């Protein structure tokens, strides 16, 4: 298929996934924040600073000492079209991408993503009213779920689907990894009974994995237990290992010679590394943060590899109106 189209599909997947995970994170943190202590020590909350760090949000970071209020942060991350990391900006990019590849994706998928526009124009779906971000978040969650559901039912399992899928899963691996790097205790920090346990739990709840975590066993939901779960558990679809495996599988399908594919080989290496570490874990979880950093670096490299191998020849089209 055309490199340009593959590139658009990959990023369509990434943007939809990013919008969803950002919205979920806002939801989880907002709720934890409400019941925490607004005047400082956060017993069981993930702070908004942490969320901004996860998003690598330069727009907020550069404001330096000036701390954003809760309402400002929610707005910045959700509906602020001027912030390129906001949910709305991600959805807008996804819509633009979908418009470009309208001939490749099914009509229903296009409708699912195009309608987001109209829905967000509805005043009752704002984040600033008394209702907070709940209706916004549930709207975004349902639209993105609809998009993926329609995609899985209506799209031919060809290269196009593979790139779309790879993009979506790549983004969830990346986002979950970012969340973990913020939620895990820093080296030297007391791990047991750490307030970060609450942060990890808020994140787990946000990605919708609370129930899955509880069903895997009776481990207490400490930061390290949650992080191991989100990192290693292949049977949980949003875990880093499962997401990377899905990206690898999708690329293998789309690649004419996967055994010679740099990104496929790299992702396979990361996966076996993850499997190995998951089995020989030190028990106290002190290695988790390091694992997250290593995997994070590898993912960034894999991102470059994917671009080089599949989208290397892409020249950004010049549109003349």
């Amino acid at each position: 298929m055309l490199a340009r189209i593959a590139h658009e599909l990959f990023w369509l997947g990434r943007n939809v996934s990013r919008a969803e995970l950002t919205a979920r994170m806002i939801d989880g943190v907002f709720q934890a924040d409400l019941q925490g202590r607004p005047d400082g020590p956060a017993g069981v909350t993930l702070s908004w600073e942490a969320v901004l760090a996860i998003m690598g949000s330069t727009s907020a970071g550069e404001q330096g000492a000036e701390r954003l209020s809760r309402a400002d942060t929610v707005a910045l991350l959700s509906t602020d079209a001027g912030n390129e990391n906001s949910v709305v900006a991600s959805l807008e990019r996804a819509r633009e991408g979908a418009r470009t590849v309208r001939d490749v994706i099914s009509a229903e998928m296009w409708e699912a993503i195009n309608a987001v526009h109209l829905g967000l124009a509805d005043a009752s779906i704002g984040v600033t009213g008394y209702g907070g971000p709940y209706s916004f978040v549930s709207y975004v969650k349902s639209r993105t779920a609809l998009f993926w559901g329609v995609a899985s039912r209506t799209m031919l399992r060809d290269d196009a689907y593979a790139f779309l899928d790879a993009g979506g899963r790549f983004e969830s691996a990346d986002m979950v990894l970012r969340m973990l790097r913020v939620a895990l205790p820093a080296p030297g920090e007391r791990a047991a009974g750490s307030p970060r346990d609450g942060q990890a739990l808020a994140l787990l709840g946000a990605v919708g994995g609370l129930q899955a975590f509880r069903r895997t066993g009776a481990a207490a939901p400490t930061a390290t237990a949650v992080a191991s779960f989100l990192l290693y558990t292949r049977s949980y679809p949003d875990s880093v290992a499962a997401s990377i495996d899905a990206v690898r599988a999708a690329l293998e399908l789309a690649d004419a010679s996967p055994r010679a594919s740099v990104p496929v080989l790299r992702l396979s290496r990361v996966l076996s590394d993850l499997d190995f570490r998951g089995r020989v874990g030190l028990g106290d979880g002190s290695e988790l943060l390091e694992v997250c950093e290593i995997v994070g670096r590898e993912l960034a490299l894999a991102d470059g590899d994917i671009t080089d191998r599949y989208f290397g020849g892409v020249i950004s089209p010049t549109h003349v109106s």
Partner: protein
Amino acid sequence: MSTAGSLTTFDEVFAADGVPRPYAQPLVDELERLGADSLVAAGALRDAIFMRQGITFDLTNPEGAVADRPFPLDLIPRIIPAAEWRTIKRGLAQRIRALNHFVDDVYHEREIVKAGIVPWTLIASRSHFARAAHGIRPPRGVYTHIAGCDLVRDANGAWKVLEDNVRTPSGISYMLENRLAMTRLIPSLFAHFRVRPIDQYPALLHAALRSVAPVADGEARIVVWTPGPANSAYFEHTFLARQMGVELVEASDLVVRDDVCYMRTTSGLARVNAIYRRLDDAFIDPLEFRPDSLLGVPGLIRAYRAGTVAIANAVGTGVADDKAVYCYVPEMIRFYLGEEPLLDNVTTYLLDDREQLELALERIGELVFKPTGESGGKGVVIGPATGEAQLAELALAVRCEPAQWIAQEVVRLSTVPTVAADGTLAARHVDLRPFAIFGDEIRIVPGGLTRVALEPGSLIVNSSRGGGSKDTWVLQDDADAEHDPPAAATFAPPALPDLRLRSWTGQAQQQQQQLLAPP
């Protein structure tokens, strides 16, 4: 039903002069800012969310038809300041400890009987006294693993215990769902308060069940046992199983072999170590209790007696929440713990006593009459709200079986502002059911289920009879902070690379250059 007009009532938000109490001031300000329209809109959203999530209950109307209704959560939270909560917490812990001693005593040495404090005839005649439990001491000696006592405030604002529930108190799921719903519906109300979180309840319950489960090695397998989807509290059973990550079983899933309880799984029988059961003693084992019970597991009591499985709450605890036994709880606290009760009972008359019976029947129109063995407001007759004919019927029933009835003074329940259909506020009567968990120690989740009578002046708060509920906020103060996890004030998140937006930054620049360069 008499109305609040003539008698004084304690309002928890507004003091007698109509000025908000200091801790409630921010709430009143925020409600004024929001206005009636916002409250009406939030109410519509609430009903939509609850219907969608299936958080409903069956309301039986006078014609007998059953309708599925969204759980009526009132949008104004009920606020309990930290100091008051400390009193409640200590009082409840004391009371539950005494009740636990009492259950142990009843089925073993009967010291309280020998001491002449509670008559044995009274204990043995209670409908929930379980002979089968005689001599069985469960792991750690804990019987009342899950307890929910109903508290009310009288006209002076003093907290009193109205009822004990140590069989299968329900409502915990509504307490947790109410909080979640409030954070979604009107989060701005939280802004001015430090509300203590309650979502640790399932984890506490799981830990308590684990701590009493007899298990030689490895993980304890815990199950929640439900009578089935037809039960009105089925939502709560599924909720707790899901929140704890354990199996929800029905009787047909459990089997006892050689004094060991198992559940049937796809990979054969699996040992069960602890059962959180949500059905009454009478139904759990047809070999020991009602032989016609189809909901029971034959042989379960045998396994329980052999100590291979823990049952929460223990078999036979019903004897402790009987309403006639309730009168003796303050004495129990003195007898077993050597302490003075921190929470008082509501004035109660034991009708077994001839003198009290006559006095109570003389004032039949002023008192509340309750059958002793029931729960959930079943069979309760409120004198002032009942007609002559029904009172005569009641008098007859009481005279026939005086031991099965008690009479209580009417308590003017405290009031809290509540949203009416048009968004305006009006005072309505409330009670409170906090939930305690007894495993290693007694833990009481800060808050509880506040039930509210939605009819003006009504004192009936049961949701099956038109009552609603409120989210209950226990405020945090600095004395609590010592027990909470240490602060993460110095927390500085690591710097992560920016999110990427496109793969072709290089080419975008190239393109830009093309555009900038003159052709």
